[in-house]
């Protein structure tokens, strides 16, 4: 028994090592992270009434300054199109409803918690992580504030504190990771009086979304936004209007980091291309150096050391000037030992 275990262990270890060296490590890693049970939220824009209580709850849950809850019923705020910023991780916008002008459409926006997040792929120090539960979170201790995640995000979600010099933060919805650790729902889901937000396993909420759009084709268009957009997102939307008109970016099915990572790994590919280039250049250097040395020796044999710099008319210009400048400045690099260099320099002072 013991023996078998040991052998098994060795076999697994060997397999693991082989996989690590041969397989595409990062692809493996991110696939492993995409758990079947990962979570998500369904945003039903036809149910949302635009009370903006989620904005209030989100601020509260993240210790961000907030006006009193009463203020949120002020309808004029909804008249302008807003985006998340350092004062709000989530905002609700209002759009016209062509089917029923009395019931405008409300769209809550926040980080989509992509399945293949561009921000995570882009971050220079790996300060953004895609967790097994589906959330994408930011690490205060790593971030250097380069804002490449903002360039990369296809939903233009992360925001930055432009008004401070010390300790600026990248801010975005963190899927209420802290609250969920304590067994609570995300603050916005928890407070929503109309159940416009459905929290659960992503597979489960997708099923609900499909059900609703199929059962009520008069209310919903047949498109679950986020089901396949850039490889799928944890937060998904259903609506009665084309998502472009709700200012959700039109996106393809391919994960955003796909091309960039393919290029990146192509250039590096386990350091084979750089090392090959290094070896190639080294060989060229060695060959040309020897060729020049023998050419140089030839010349010494034929014209015992001529120092005429300007007599290259009619002669091979490469060899003539090559010879002279080689002696004059070449020695300052890797050719000669330091001591003789110094003497040469003094003697050669033209």
């Amino acid at each position, binding site marked *: 028994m013991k023996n078998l275990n040991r052998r098994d262990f060795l076999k697994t270890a060997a397999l693991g090592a082989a996989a690590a060296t041969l397989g595409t490590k990062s692809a493996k890693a991110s696939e492993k992270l995409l758990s079947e049970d990962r979570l998500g939220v369904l945003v039903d824009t036809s149910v949302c009434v635009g009370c903006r209580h989620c904005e209030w709850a989100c601020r509260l849950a993240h210790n961000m300054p907030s006006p009193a809850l009463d203020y949120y019923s002020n309808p004029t705020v909804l008249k302008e199109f807003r985006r998340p910023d350092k004062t709000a991780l989530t905002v609700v916008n209002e759009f016209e409803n062509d089917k029923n002008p009395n019931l405008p459409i409300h769209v809550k926006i926040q980080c989509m918690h992509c399945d293949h997040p561009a921000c995570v792929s882009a*971050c*220079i120090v790996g300060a953004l992580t895609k967790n097994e539960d589906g959330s994408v979170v930011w690490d205060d201790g790593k971030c250097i*504030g380069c804002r490449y995640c903002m360039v990369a995000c296809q939903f*233009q979600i992360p925001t930055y*504190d432009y008004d401070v010099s010390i300790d600026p933060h990248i801010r975005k919805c963190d899927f209420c990771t802290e609250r969920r650790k304590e067994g609570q729902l995300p603050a916005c889901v928890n407070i929503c009086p109309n159940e416009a937000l459905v929290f659960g396993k992503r597979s489960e909420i997708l099923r609900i979304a499909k059900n609703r759009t199929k059962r009520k084709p008069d209310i919903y268009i047949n498109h679950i936004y986020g089901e396949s957009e850039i490889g799928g997102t944890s937060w998904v939307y259903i609506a009665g209007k084309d998502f472009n008109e709700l200012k959700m970016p039109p996106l393809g099915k391919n994960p955003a980091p796909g091309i960039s990572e393919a290029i*990146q790994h192509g250039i590096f590919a386990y350091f084979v291309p750089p090392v090959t280039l290094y070896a190639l*250049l080294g060989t060229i250097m060695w060959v040309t150096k020897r060729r*020049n040395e023998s050419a140089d020796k030839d010349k010494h044999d034929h014209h015992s050391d001529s120092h005429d710099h300007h007599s290259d008319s009619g002669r091979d210009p490469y060899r003539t000037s090559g010879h002279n400048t080689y002696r004059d400045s070449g020695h*300052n*690099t890797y050719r000669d030992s330091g001591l003789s260099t110094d003497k040469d320099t003094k003697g050669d002072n033209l």
Partner: protein
Amino acid sequence: MKPAPVKHRFFTPGVIILAVLALNGLIFLAVRFISGLGAVTNLDNNTPWGLWIGVDVAAGVALAAGGFTSAALGHVIHREHYHAIVRPALLTALLGYTFVAFAVCVDIGRFYYIWHPLIMWNGNSALFEVGICVMIYMTVLYIEFLPIVTEKFMGKVNLPGFLETFNEPADKLLRMLNSGLSKTMFIFIIAGVVLSTLHQSSLGTLMVIAGQKMHPLWQTPVLPLLFLLSAIAVGFPMIIFESLIASRSFKMKPEMKILSRLGSMVAPILGVYLAVKIGDMFISDDFKYILKFDVPAWMFMAETGLIIIAFVLFLSKETTRSPGRLFLASSLVIAGVLLNRINNFIVAYKPLYDPVAYFPSFGEISVTVGCIALLVLIYRAVVIYFPVISHK
């Protein structure tokens, strides 16, 4: 003919103007570090990258490419008659990359965490690769420059007063360093070339991940190749440009023999670059975007036009023979590549939601101009003090 310190006084009216520009930039820099990026720049949540990344970092790295192209030519392919340009090009690359590193520190929000990429790695990130390669390459450039320093002081160590007794050991140390460097320098020279090809191309990968936020005229999977080719193409023109300006400023005869040889190599490289760039347009069917004749279309035509004119100029022998024409043609290449980097990082970036289009603020421009002015001043000081430029 060997490299020697230039005998010229430091201050001239031009130098004073540069000093004023540098000072102006430093004032805005101070504001940036006291009150944050928003106080000086027009950057916001829609446009996170602007002039400093586009010009100071991206164009800076491209225009410092003369360092690795000349090292490849002079040391790897061993065309020794080019040695006269290796040192000035090395100095430009060294100062250029130092300037880039400084610009990065200015632009990143948490400048005090600049060292994080050294220990926190993300192999998927193009920016990580650029960052690491630039850091290592900069170290390599300083090592490559060391022999110029040892050469300056060897045999001339003259410490004041009681330190006099250390003169001999110091000199011995220098000699040891110098001989050690001479023997190992080839390692660094090749490493420099490899590192350069890597990060020059990765700079092109940077914007690929922006996806549809990049204008289709520039968004293409061959961006890394285009960036590498344009960096190689601008290397020699940049050396020519600087050499001609330096000889003008220091009242020396231009090194026409070397410069026209360098010039004759520019056309083929530009040709390859243009072929890939225009070929890619056919493949991705981008011509329809040019026919829109909007700002991006004009900017694209401007950058491509500059390179095409330069290409035609460099094709003719006349150009490579006359300093004036050579200067003009080289300037066109530099302008073309500079514009290409500005286009890629600023013009092509169209945020999804953006009420006001980004245009650099006066403060951003001041910092960029100020840093360039400072760079020129340091270059001038170094060539007056150290043996960099070869002249009779």
